[in-house]
């Protein structure tokens, strides 16, 4: 850590991990509700618990992105953050607003929350992933503006690197496209059409810019490969991302009342969406193979490589599985979508956050470069536990989805939804068991912050011969 103001990132990372734990606990609750339908009913109905699960995910990922930005922007710009106090203030505001909203989801029926927050005045709540009360949404905008100002002025003041610029573009895009969350017409087609401008253009658009720049930063730091090379790759990858991803939005416009041509445009461009993810995998392994030094923080390198692989599998391969319109006709809105969602979010966004946390936390806690061996071994255990769990969760949900599609939509005698659900219950049991393994991995992950913190830092066993 070179600049004092980078320290503010630590708060954000701690909050992110805390919320991550909450997200997984609620995931287990709704997973259990898939098996025992009356679990916690009527105290905590499925929809409220699911809103907690998904909203916590989004909020903790954004906490992680913000922490990452506060950590890497000063280091890249070679100057202190312009307003560290604002970063701290916004942290507490964001945390308080987020926590209040989550508590609201848990303790009261959704309709009461709507009343309490005056949803009548400006109704925006209750749409998937955008469940938040309007007042929370406004708070998010305020936090985002303050955050962007802080980061933006720091970048303007200091050295302008490609990583910083791309990160800033990604974060600005995140804020700009969020504004479509305030557009909520009665016409359901337009509601859905522009809802995707938030959701798709986030996760298959601007978030990938954030992902790319954080990954590039970690690779520069841990491999010592020439910045020029890494920045060029970064540009090529994000170019492919947006070239395919923007029109790829069309794969959400097949069955919502939008015209037929989207089936072609959406299929063709979203079929190309795996390309940038594939390039990212090639890029990460290439850079690590060409490394000029062995970094003592092996865990961070593992997370970075894991991100590249799992993002390709989850977002690329599992996305491609059901992105073509003729396939999507049968799979749209089934457990196949859920399977893809789980692996894509974990592979792309959870892992990149854990990677930057893994890289930055030891430094924020006063280490020279890395945690002790003992701590790293634990962290790598958690990597494998969580990653393998998510792979199996995805496989079980895919199996459930295939059966669901067959029984409910494809066979000669389509069965009602609830009948099908009881027939595929076995896979929900398996998913829940795997979810418990994931939780174990997460506990190991949290433990790795406390174990071995008094032991000496890990060191590298000898230098690499610089690859040509």
């Amino acid at each position, binding site marked *: 850590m070179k600049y004092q103001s980078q320290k503010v990132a630590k708060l954000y990372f701690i909050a992110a991990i805390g919320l991550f734990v909450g997200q997984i606990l609620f995931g287990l609750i709704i997973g259990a509700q898939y098996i025992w339908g009356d679990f916690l009913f009527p105290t905590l109905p499925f929809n409220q618990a699911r809103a907690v699960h998904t909203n916590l995910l989004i909020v903790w990922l954004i906490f992680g992105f913000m922490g990452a930005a506060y950590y890497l922007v000063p280091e890249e710009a070679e100057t202190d953050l312009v307003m560290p106090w604002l970063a701290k203030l916004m942290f507490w505001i964001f945390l308080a607003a987020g926590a209040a909203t989550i508590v609201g989801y848990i303790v009261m029926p959704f309709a009461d929350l709507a009343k309490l927050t005056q949803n009548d005045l400006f109704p925006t709540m209750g749409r998937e992933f955008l469940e938040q009360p309007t007042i929370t949404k406004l708070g998010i905008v305020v936090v985002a503006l303050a955050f962007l100002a802080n980061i933006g002025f720091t970048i303007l003041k200091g050295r302008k690197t490609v990583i910083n610029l791309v990160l800033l573009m990604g974060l600005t895009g995140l804020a700009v496209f969020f504004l479509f969350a305030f557009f909520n017409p009665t016409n*359901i087609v337009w509601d859905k059409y522009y809802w995707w401008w938030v959701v798709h253009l986030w996760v298959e658009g601007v978030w990938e810019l954030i992902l790319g720049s954080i990954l590039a930063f970690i690779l520069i730091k841990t491999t010592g490969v020439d910045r020029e090379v890494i920045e060029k790759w970064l540009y090529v990858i994000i170019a492919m991302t947006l070239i395919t991803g923007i*029109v790829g939005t069309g794969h959400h416009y097949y069955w919502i009342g939008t015209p037929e041509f989207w089936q072609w445009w959406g299929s063709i461009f979203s079929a190309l969406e795996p390309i940038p993810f594939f390039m990212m995998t090639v890029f990460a392994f290439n850079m690590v193979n060409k490394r000029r030094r062995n970094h003592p923080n092996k865990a961070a390198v593992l997370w970075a490589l894991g991100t590249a692989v799992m993002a390709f599998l989850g977002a690329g391969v599992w996305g491609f599985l059901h992105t073509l319109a003729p396939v999507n006709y049968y799979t749209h809105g089934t457990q196949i979508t859920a399977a893809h969602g789980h692996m894509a979010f974990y592979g792309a966004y959870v892992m990149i956050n854990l990677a930057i946390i893994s890289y930055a936390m030891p430094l924020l806690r006063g280490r020279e470069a890395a945690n002790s061996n003992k701590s790293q071994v634990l962290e790598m255990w958690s990597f494998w536990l969580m990653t393998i769990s998510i792979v199996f969760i995805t496989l079980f949900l895919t199996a459930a989805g295939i059966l669901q599609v067959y029984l409910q939509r494809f066979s000669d005698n389509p069965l009602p939804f609830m009948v099908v659900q009881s027939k595929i219950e076995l896979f929900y049991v398996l998913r829940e068991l795997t979810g418990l393994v994931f939780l174990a991995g997460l506990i190991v992950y949290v433990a790795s912050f406390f174990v071995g913190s008094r032991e000496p830092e890990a060191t590298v066993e000898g230098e690499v011969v610089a690859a040509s």
Partner: protein
Amino acid sequence: MAQAFTKAMARNIFYGGTAFFFLLFLALTFQTHSVVPERDNHEAINDTVALGKKVWEENDCIGCHTLLGEGAYFAPELGNVYKRFGSTDAIKAFIKSRPVNGVPGRRSMPQFNLSDEELEAVAQFLKYVSGVKTNRNWPPTPQG
């Protein structure tokens, strides 16, 4: 060397490509706007439907159900529920009859205690959605 793979070039392609494809996306959006009115059943939208959509949102129905395939996958698709149930009365009767304490061991919709006006509105909203013309008449079967 001719194969110089310069950063400036990569940057230009990023900016150029993004602008290019975003404009293309806007053009397609514009085109969408000109034809959606023929298929979105907007004639059916009135104050009741608008209230129904608000009831739908304020009770977070999307947190369990899908609507035209989007939402949670815990409960049945409702984009075609009007066709599946056959009438708004059947929809209203179903919502109204949900037991407060659920069904032992099974999934059950909560009892939302909607007023008669809200019940009518949400049923009218679902009727309106079922009138949206989707490609190939998605969903594939009445079961959703």
